[in-house]
C-alpha cells in the first residue's frame, strides 16, 4: 500500500529560499496535503502551509504542484507515478510570507474596490422575488471559494507586477459580472468593469477557467459576457442609439 514518495518543497521567505528534498511515506487514498501534514508532524514541524477544511470547500491550501496551480487537498497522490518527484511551491504571483504561505492581501484589496450589491431602494426584506432562472447565472459565480488560484495564474498580474494596480483579476471581474447579472442589482457595472477594474486587460486566454477547482466557467460565463455587455455600453452605437430612443438603459431588459 504505502511507499516512499519523493518531494521537493519550496522553503524560505521573502529574503530567499529554495526547493528542499524530502522522502516521505505515502499511503493509499492520500492527497498532497496529507503528505505535507506528515512532513510537518515528522520532519519539518515549522513548515508553513495554509489549510482549513481539507475538502475543497474553503480554498485555503492553494499552491503550485509540479508547476500547476492547484488545491493541495484536491490533488490525489494517485495522479502521480510512485517514482515521480512531486514539487510543491507557493503561489508565484503574491509576496511570499514563509514556505507555502503567501500574502494574498492583493485579492482582498481588489474585492473591496467592487461596489457592493445595490438593491432597489423601495424593496423591504422579505419582499424580494426572483425567478430561479434569473439567479442561476450569478449563483454559478457564487460557488467561488476564493482560493485565488485564478488570480495567481492570470498572466496579466503573474507576469506583470505593474498591472496589479489597474487589474482586478478574474475573481473580481467575475464578481462584477455576478452583480451585473443579479436580477435586483441597480448599480452600473459595465463602465466600472472596463474603467475601474481593468476588464480590457483580460485577453481571454482561459487559464482562470483551467485552474478553477470549482469548475466555474469564468471566461465563458462571466468574463466574455461582461466584455459583451461593455461593448453594448461603450462600443456599440446601435445599442447606444436604441437605448436613447427608447429612453431606457440596456440593463432594464
Amino acid at each position, binding site marked *: 500500500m504505502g511507499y516512499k514518495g519523493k518531494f521537493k518543497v519550496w522553503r524560505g521567505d521573502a529574503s530567499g529560499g529554495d526547493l528542499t528534498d524530502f522522502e516521505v511515506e505515502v499511503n493509499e487514498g492520500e492527497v498532497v496535503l496529507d503528505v505535507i501534514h506528515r512532513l510537518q508532524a515528522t520532519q519539518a514541524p515549522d513548515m508553513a502551509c495554509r489549510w482549513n477544511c481539507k475538502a475543497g470547500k474553503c480554498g485555503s491550501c492553494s499552491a503550485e504542484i509540479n*508547476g500547476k496551480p492547484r488545491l493541495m487537498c484536491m490533488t490525489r497522490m494517485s495522479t502521480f507515478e510512485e517514482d515521480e518527484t512531486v514539487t510543491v511551491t507557493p503561489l*508565484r504571483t*503574491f509576496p511570499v510570507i514563509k514556505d507555502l504561505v503567501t500574502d494574498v492581501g492583493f485579492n482582498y484589496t481588489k474585492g473591496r474596490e467592487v461596489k457592493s450589491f445595490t438593491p432597489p431602494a423601495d424593496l423591504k426584506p422579505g419582499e424580494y422575488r426572483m425567478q430561479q432562472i434569473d439567479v442561476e447565472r450569478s449563483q454559478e459565480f457564487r460557488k467561488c471559494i476564493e482560493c485565488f488560484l485564478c488570480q495567481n495564474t492570470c498572466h496579466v498580474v503573474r507576469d506583470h507586477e505593474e498591472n496589479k494596480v489597474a487589474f482586478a483579476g478574474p475573481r473580481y471581474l467575475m464578481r462584477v459580472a455576478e452583480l451585473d447579472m443579479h436580477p435586483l442589482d441597480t448599480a452600473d457595472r459595465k463602465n466600472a468593469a472596463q474603467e475601474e477594474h481593468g476588464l480590457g486587460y483580460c485577453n*481571454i486566454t482561459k487559464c482562470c477557467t483551467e485552474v478553477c477547482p470549482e469548475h466555474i466557467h469564468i471566461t465563458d460565463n462571466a468574463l466574455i459576457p461582461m466584455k*459583451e455587455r461593455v461593448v453594448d455600453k461603450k462600443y456599440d452605437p446601435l445599442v447606444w442609439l436604441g437605448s436613447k430612443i427608447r429612453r431606457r438603459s440596456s440593463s432594464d431588459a
Partner: protein
Amino acid sequence: MATDTIAPGPEAPAPLSPARAKIEQKTLRTDRWWLSPLLTLLVLVAFIFYATFRAFQNADYYADGLISPFYSPCLATSCVPDSALGGFTPFGSWWALSPALLILIFPLGFRMTCYYYRKAYYRAFWQSPPACAVAEPHGKYTGETRFPLILNNAHRWFFYAGLIFNVILTWDGILAFRNGAGQWGHMSVGTLVLLANATLLWLYSLSCHSCRHAIGGRLKHFSKHPVRYKGWTLVSKLNHKHMLFAWVSLFGVALADAYVALVANGTFSNPTFF
C-alpha cells in the same frame, strides 16, 4: 492572422515584486504544455499560407456550378462567367486584383476577433501566455485596453457580417443542386461539400459568444423573455463546443475551397449522383 498586429509594446522587462518567492524556473510544469500551442501555431500558419495563396491566385474558384467559399460572393466584373451571384458586380471592372480580396476581410475579421481564436493566437503566436503558469516572454502587457487590440471589441459586427456570408454560402450550396449547364434537380459530391461547409459555418457562427449575448445573454431577467431564454439555452449548449466548431469550420472552408480548386483545374471531375 498576422501576428504583428498584436504587438503590445517595447520589450523592457518590468521587475516582479522582490517579495515574491524566488524561483528561477520560468515554469515547473512537467507535462507537455508546449504541445497544444505548437499544434495551434502549425495549423494556423499552414492555413494562412494556403489562404493567402488561394486568395491571390485569382483562378480555379468556380467550376461545374460550384463556387469556392473564398470567392463567394464574387463582386467584380472580372469574376469568371456565372460565378457572380445573380450577376451582381458592384465593383465593376476597375477592380483588377483577385475578387477574393474584396470579401475575405469579413470572415477573416470574424475569426480574428473571435473569442476562441483570440485565446488560440495569444497563446500560440504571441505567447501571452504560452500556457497556464508558464511565464510569458514580454516585459510589458496592456492586453485589449488600447489600439489595436481594443478593436477586438468589434467582434459582433463581424458576427453580423458573417451571418450574411452564411446565407450566401448556403445559397451557393443550394445552387449546387444544378449541373454544369445550370439545370436544376442534380446533385454531386460538390453539392455535399458546399452544404457541409455552410452547415459548419452556421454552427460556428451560432455558437459564437456575441451570438449568445445578442440572443439573450444581455438580458437581466430571463423570466420575462421565455423565447429568448430558450434561444440562449440552446446557443449556450452550442457555445460549449465553440472551439470545436471553430476548428472544423476552418478545415471545412479550406477543404471546400480545395475541392472546387481541384475540380476547376481539372485534377478530377466532380462525381454526380443524379
